[in-house]
């Protein structure tokens, strides 16, 4: 039986990577990197993990190295954050159409300037369209579980796509939480050895990553997108099997106290736990408030989200990204698109909060719900609203 211990989430993730028996880790060790790869480098150095650790000269090289090792048939892992993720961006677009099942943890952090290493979702939201499977963890245990799940799904031959597990930087990555580290035996049962359909092999040479002239590029992109959409089936099946082996249940959208709700908060990541407390507080006061937590972000679980919303009349979307100069922020933007001209669609309002590590409190959620209710009665002038940002 797996034992529950107090452990820093980053260290727990490194231990989970070890349990997944990876072959190659390529990473750049400087800020905004986390302890995940630092601990992995120790595990490799002391011989307790038989893997190749490649300390590259930049995140651009880290992801390039990951593409190469994955193409050669090695189970591959990396981790990054913020500016580091941005430097990887070019290669993120390469891994997905080439169907390389790299797994990466992104400790979500603010983008400088001003210089910040604190949490929000600005780094990942600009990478939403790179063709990777993406999940958001709410707490340390979930981060560990989603990581093991990510390898299983990414490497499934029906999927064969890279996957990102998002954890809130600092708020999750650098805190100590009670976490049940799974048994090796159970992980082995859940995660079979990596056997890619095709790999680089000098005995049977193939070309990966050729030129896509206009006659073929479009079809290649459609094929990637359809594969990503179809991966949802495998994602759901793997979560079901995960529950059978490890006893913890995961779904694409988590609903909390949504019964007969007038307003549903929509959150992603670790602030969902504060949001649950806020819902409890508001329910105690007699307000009909619930919460939807988006766990699976890419591919977006359209049917599951609609089902979870049901007939709720108001959605208050909490975005931790500011789309500078845009109409509104990514999460609200997608949800508004999802419900455009749908009969009896909920009214959707976008609230931007918690940028650069600013705490999001129960009071903030109460403010959001109050505002959403009044906006539903009288349409607001603006398309999005700052919560907790001082004016003077």
């Amino acid at each position, binding site marked *: 039986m797996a034992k529950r211990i107090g452990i820093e989430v980053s260290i727990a993730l490194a231990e989970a990577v070890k349990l997944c028996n990876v072959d190659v880790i390529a990473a750049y060790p400087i800020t905004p990197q986390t302890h995940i790869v630092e601990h992995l480098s120790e595990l490799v150095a002391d011989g307790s993990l038989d893997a190749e650790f490649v300390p590259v000269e930049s995140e651009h090289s880290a992801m390039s190295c990951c593409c190469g090792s994955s193409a050669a048939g090695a189970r591959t892992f990396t981790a990054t954050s913020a500016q580091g993720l941005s430097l990887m961006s070019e290669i993120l677009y390469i891994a997905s*159409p*080439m*169907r*390389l099942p790299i797994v990466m943890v992104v400790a979500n952090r603010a983008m400088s300037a001003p210089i910040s290493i604190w949490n929000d979702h600005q780094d990942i939201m600009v990478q939403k369209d790179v063709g990777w499977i993406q999940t958001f963890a709410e707490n340390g245990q979930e981060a560990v579980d989603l990581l093991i799940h990510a390898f299983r799904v990414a490497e499934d031959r029906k999927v*064969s796509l890279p996957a990102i597990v998002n954890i809130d930087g600092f708020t999750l990555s650098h805190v100590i939480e009670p976490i049940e580290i799974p048994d090796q035996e159970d992980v082995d049962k859940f995660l079979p050895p990596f056997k890619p*359909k*095709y790999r680089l092999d000098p005995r049977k*040479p*193939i*070309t*990966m*990553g*050729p030129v*896509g*002239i*206009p*006659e*073929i590029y479009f*079809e*290649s992109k*459609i*094929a990637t997108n*359809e594969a990503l959409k179809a991966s949802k089936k495998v994602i759901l099946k793997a979560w079901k099997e995960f529950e059978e082996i490890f006893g913890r249940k995961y779904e694409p959208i988590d609903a909390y106290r949504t019964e007969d709700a007038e307003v549903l908060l929509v959150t992603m990541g670790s602030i969902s736990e504060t949001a649950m407390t806020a819902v409890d507080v508001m329910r105690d006061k007699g307000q009909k408030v619930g919460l939807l937590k988006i766990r699976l972000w890419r591919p977006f679980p359209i049917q599951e989200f609609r089902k979870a919303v049901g007939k709720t009349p108001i959605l208050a979307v909490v975005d931790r990204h500011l789309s500078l100069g845009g109409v509104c922020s990514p999460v609200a933007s997608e949800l508004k698109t999802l419900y455009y001209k749908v009969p009896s669609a909920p009214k959707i309002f976008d609230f931007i909060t918690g940028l650069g590590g600013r705490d999001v409190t129960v009071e903030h959620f109460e403010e959001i719900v109050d505002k959403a209710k009044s906006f539903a009665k009288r349409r607001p002038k603006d398309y999005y609203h700052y919560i907790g940002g001082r004016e003077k």
Partner: protein
Amino acid sequence: MARVDAIVGWKTITFGCHIFEPGNSVKFRTGDWRSQRPVLDKEKCIKCGMCWIYCPDMAYNQTEDGYFEVNLEYCKGCGICANECPKDAITMVPEEG
């Protein structure tokens, strides 16, 4: 757009766009964006093969009579052959129509 012998759809495209047999670029006849083409004056040509050596797209082939002939399915009209020819036997003429 280039003329392609091997048109495929998104459902039939190879996994990951991988190429499993080498040399399939032959199927993509890419010589149709040329604005000018090389014309050989056989009176001046000494069959030295400099055009064949310098052509960046390997569009030249030697014929049975020893001359080098350009394959216009692949020639992009860059003019390197005309520039390198030691006998000025190749002239670049505009493509018309």
